[in-house]
């Protein structure tokens, strides 16, 4: 049993177990000096050499986790404890037997002494040696003792006067001798001596029996000890240890299995305590591992999202440059005597709101369009509208706002194939057009879904135009009907074309939560009529932000604010 190499039996067993992986490692690299990590390697605890930090090499604990090593642990325990216990028990038993034997021997000696001195005193008469035969019966009485062997009676001169029994000398331990002086008058020398020998054979038999008993007892004790120790070690040490090792092997493979204590936890049992600590460690490792994995996944997802978002944002940023370049120069109507201020703010960089400013034939053309949708889809529609409008103004030379709207309706519907051929597109636009005739001081307006707001001092007028927008698949025969409004412009009048993104600002809290609405917007504008348009528009923008109070905007916003310069319009008076 290899376990005789006791101090590191598990480690050695692990060594034997791991000979194969080790050969893959150190020995193939050549016979260089062992590094400090080599021991761990030999013992089977090897860090993973490749790029997966924090992971144990699968199988590193494999050897140690095998039951065999636990058996050797048990054998180690037995072999180290068994001889000690055996020697102690044997020595104790023999000691007891020896003390017993000594006591018995002592008692025998005292008995012999007593018998000798009793006989000696019985003989002690003056001149007893003259006729020793008188005392023969008394001396012979000594042989009544079953252990009696021999007796010798001598006179003062040492002459043997009487002797009987088996006189032949035996080995010392087989007979016990006693001698007693035959006393004379006090102060005088002894009158003779009696020597008595009794047998110690019974004593020896006794001692042999005791010794045998001691050996048998110690054997029985030993057997009981071995069986008890084995059962207890198996139950209280080996089984929990094996359980722990199996759990460790699982954990090594990142299977987060705790040790099943089955409710049998005892705080006084160190292995239970270790198992519990191990379970806590497994819990910690598991949550750490899970958190790490989640974090990794999250980071990956985050990077992907970041990349995707950057791509989209770059793309939309580019789209915004294109859409912005389609929009007119803000000063396009300088020559027509109109002050113009513009607020154009798509919800998502680009959007479905569009405006156009152009001076043609001395007329100022102002268009605001709100196409369905916002963002990229809305922006697509604005390009269709821009192209169509360009053709209507320059190829068909339309100058009449109602006519432009009606023609725009047709063109958009043709472009989007909404004219009754199973249209896929359900899109369209709200649009308002003003045509400013400086020479006549007249403003002509037509709107489809878009209103014109006129603020003249404190008076607010709203001309709504047609309710329906342009485009959209319509019922057969349905035509957009747009009316034109002709306004004579007086000094101080301000005009506003706005998309519903301007008025549809959600704000307020609780029951007061509602859209700002047209009135809300015109109240703000009307209160600021003295200011230049650009300032007015900037302040309106700020007021809208304040009204929303953190609420997200819902739509693209476009506001065209315009008013004839003072020098342009003759006083009505």
């Amino acid at each position, binding site marked *: 049993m290899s376990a005789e190499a006791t101090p590191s039996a598990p480690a050695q067993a692990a060594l034997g177990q791991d000979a194969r992986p080790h050969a893959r490692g150190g020995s193939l690299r050549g016979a260089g000096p062992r590094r400090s990590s080599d021991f761990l390697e030999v013992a089977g605890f090897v860090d993973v050499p490749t790029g997966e930090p924090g992971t144990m090499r699968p199988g590193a604990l494999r050897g140690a986790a095998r039951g065999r090593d636990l058996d050797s642990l048990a054998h180690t325990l037995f072999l180290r404890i068994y001889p000690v216990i055996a020697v102690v028990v044997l020595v104790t038993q023999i000691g007891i037997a020896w003390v017993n034997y000594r006591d018995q021997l002592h008692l025998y000696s005292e008995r012999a002494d007593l018998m000798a001195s009793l006989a000696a005193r019985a003989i002690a008469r003056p001149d007893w040696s003259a006729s020793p035969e008188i005392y023969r019966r008394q001396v012979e009485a000594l042989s009544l003792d079953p252990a009696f062997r021999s007796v010798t009676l001598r006179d003062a001169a040492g002459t043997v006067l009487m002797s009987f029994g088996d006189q032949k000398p035996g080995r010392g331990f087989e007979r016990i001798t006693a001698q007693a002086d035959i006393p004379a008058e006090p102060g005088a020398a002894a009158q003779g001596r009696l020597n008595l020998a009794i047998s110690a054979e019974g004593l020896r038999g006794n001692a042999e029996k005791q010794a045998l008993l001691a050996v048998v007892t110690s054997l029985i004790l030993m057997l009981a000890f071995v069986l008890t120790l084995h059962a207890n070690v198996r139950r209280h040490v080996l089984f929990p240890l094996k359980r722990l090792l199996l759990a460790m092997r699982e954990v090594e493979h990142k299977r987060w299995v705790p040790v099943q204590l089955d409710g049998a936890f005892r705080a006084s049992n160190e292995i239970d305590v270790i198992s519990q600590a191990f379970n806590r460690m497994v819990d910690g490792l598991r949550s750490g591992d899970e958190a790490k994995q989640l974090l990794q996944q999250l980071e990956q997802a985050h990077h992907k999202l970041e990349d995707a978002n950057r791509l989209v944002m770059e793309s939309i940023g580019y789209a915004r440059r294109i859409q912005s370049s389609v929009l007119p120069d803000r000063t396009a109507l300088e020559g027509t005597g109109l002050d113009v201020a513009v607020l154009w703010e798509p919800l998502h960089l680009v959007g479905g709101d569009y405006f156009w400013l152009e001076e043609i034939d001395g007329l100022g053309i102002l268009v605001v369009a*709100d196409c*369905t*949708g916002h963002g990229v889809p809305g922006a697509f529609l604005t390009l269709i509208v821009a192209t169509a409008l360009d053709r209507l103004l320059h190829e068909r030379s339309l100058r009449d706002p109602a006519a432009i709207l009606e023609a725009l309706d047709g063109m958009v519907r043709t472009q989007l194939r909404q004219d009754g051929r199973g249209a896929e597109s*359900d899109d*369209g636009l*709200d649009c308002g057009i003003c045509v400013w005739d400086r020479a006549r001081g007249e403003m002509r307006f037509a709107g489809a*879904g878009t209103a014109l707001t006129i603020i003249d001092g404190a008076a607010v007028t709203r001309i709504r135009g047609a*309710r329906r*927008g342009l485009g*959209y698949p319509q019922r057969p025969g349905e035509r957009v009907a747009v009316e034109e409004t002709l306004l004579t412009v007086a000094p101080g009048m301000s005009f506003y074309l706005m998309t*519903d993104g301007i*008025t*549809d600002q*959600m704000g307020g809290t609780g*029951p*007061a*939560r*509602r*859209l700002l*609405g*047209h*009135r809300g917007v015109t109240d703000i504008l009307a209160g600021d009529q003295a200011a230049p348009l650009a300032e007015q528009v900037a302040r309106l923008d700020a007021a809208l932000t304040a009204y929303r109070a953190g609420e997200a905007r*819902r*739509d693209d916003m476009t506001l065209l604010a315009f008013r004839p310069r003072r020098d342009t319009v003759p006083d009505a008076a």
Partner: protein
Amino acid sequence: MDRIQLAATDRSPQVDFDFASGHLSLRGESYPEDAAAFFGPLLQALRAHLADQSGAPIVFEVGLAYFNSSSAKALMNLFMPLEDAAEEGRSVTVRWHFVDGDETIEEAGEDFAADFSHARFEMVREPVA
């Protein structure tokens, strides 16, 4: 038809189309990213319900604090078959709820009302409280 019940989200209204009782309702705000996708199934269900010719009265409650133009278009698409059904003799009532003072929604209701000549279109002014 099975009842359609959808919880409100921040971009779409609460929907309860209880066809069995003839009671339909939309409440909340409506500016879904894809209005056609949101309203398409509702329109289909409504059409299917109207096609089964039971003739039971229908009440459609609309209480929206905000809707974008795509939703407006979708509402119109919902209203059209109702108006057609009313023209064929079915009892149809659209109840347009708006909070007192919310001119935008009130005005939108008036605009929709103009499209109806057979169905009843009721403007329901709700107190601010």
